[in-house]
């Protein structure tokens, strides 16, 4: 079962990592809720249409994570989305293996959505030009997370994703990206990031 990412989802993930280069960051990916469960649903990949940046810094504490998951779940239900994945970029650049936090949160998501994916960002290959996808995608098989090769097929439109992500990085859009931590600091900060969504649409 494979997932694909839209430009908006990929973009915001990388902007989040770029905003806090000295911290670990994590967040959720959401997909549109499928209306009917097809018998041969194995052939259609899940499209992650958006990304919700969650925290930066210390990721291993429970209370705010629970609040975020519950709140975003409610928001998803309103917007006919479902939480379909979890991403994390570790504090140390060279460390892109999933840790206990990643596995736990991703497992929790998989309880509600069996095809959930866990995504680790490989910061060593993170460049302004975004010439290659820098993700490692993990699928849940028999209680273990197995890494799948991430290439341009994992994207709805890789050329568009590459072009737009690079443009937004150059323009320092990450300075205005809001994650859930920012929201808790000031409730007026909107974690759906409507302005950045507009910028992405604009550049499409």
């Amino acid at each position, binding site marked *: 079962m494979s997932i694909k990412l839209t430009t908006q989802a990929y973009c915001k993930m990388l902007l989040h990592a770029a905003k806090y*280069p*000295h911290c670990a960051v994590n967040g959720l990916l959401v997909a549109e809720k499928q209306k009917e469960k097809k018998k041969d649903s194995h052939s259609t990949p899940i499209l992650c249409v958006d990304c919700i940046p969650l925290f930066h810094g*210390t990721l*291993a*504490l*429970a*209370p*705010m994570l*629970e*609040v975020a998951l*519950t*709140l975003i*779940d*409610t*928001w998803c239900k*309103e917007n006919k989305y479902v939480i379909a994945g979890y991403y994390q970029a570790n504090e*140390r650049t*060279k*460390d892109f293996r999933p840790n*206990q936090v990643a596995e736990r949160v991703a497992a929790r998501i998989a309880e509600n959505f069996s095809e959930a994916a866990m995504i680790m960002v490989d910061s060593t290959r993170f460049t302004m030009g975004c010439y290659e996808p820098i993700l490692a995608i993990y699928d849940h098989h028999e209680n273990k997370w197995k890494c799948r090769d991430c290439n341009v097929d994992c994207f709805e439109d890789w050329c568009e994703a590459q072009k737009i992500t690079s443009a937004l990085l150059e323009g*320092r859009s990450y300075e205005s990206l809001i994650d859930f931590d920012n929201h*808790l*600091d*000031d*409730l*007026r900060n*909107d*974690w*759906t990031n*409507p302005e950045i969504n507009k910028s992405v649409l604009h550049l499409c």
Partner: protein
Amino acid sequence: MASVSEMYDVTWEEMRDKLRKWREDNHRNSEQIVDVGEELINEHASKLGDDIWIIYEQVMIAALDCSRDDLAWTCLQELKRQFPGSQRVKRLAGMRLEALEKYEDASKQYDSILQDDPTNTAARKRKISILKAQGKSAEAIRELNEYLEQFVGDQEAWHELSELYINEHDYGKAAFCLEELMMTNPHNHLYCEQYAEVKYTQGGLENLELSRKYFAQALKLNNRNMRALFGLYMSASHIAASPKVNATVKKSNVKYAAWATNQINRAYQLAGRGTKENKCSVKAVEEMLESMQITMS
């Protein structure tokens, strides 16, 4: 490219004051510091007086964060010239080596500082940072513990240690570090709230009750701390839902949770005023709180 002063229409004095504020608040907004600081240094060095030296230090560290070794080198040279033989400048030279990932050379630099002055805390802490950068968490924790036996009052160190323990999922020891911080800073709502989060994460009824108390304490110290408010709600809800509590405890916690719900809704109403987009957030929070009430009973 337009200069910072042109883009934001600020004077050099305002830029200097901004840098000072960022210094005092210990902000790590390195890109901005480099933008503002570099312009200040290049265009207005003569007007800055003795402030220029601390600005060189601030900009150098920010430049290291941004891989601007050219700028870092320039700042370092100016500082070396003005303060030959200074331990503080030697430490900056060490940090530059760290940024270039020359950890052995950096370590030697810090060792030479420590040879001249064994009580130099900055050099010892940099050595621990090297361990952290290399992913040697267990060693970093060990060294930091040793450091704190000598320098018991170093709050930055206690906080760093609590974070290292949290990352290793050793919540008990993280709580101990935060207890030290709360003892010496009883009015700091952030330490209270972090302690509560650690206790909550540890789990178990006793820890949940403790976490609720400390979330409440954090709120008392700062009634706008949203994390404390949410934390109070979550911990009270979980206690009330636990099969191990008696009816009285359950009733009180339901009351605390209901109070927190009210406060959360009010906070969102206040924040949502005026912006159309935030109305969806308000609604989502209301629904979330409602749905949790149902599952609680």
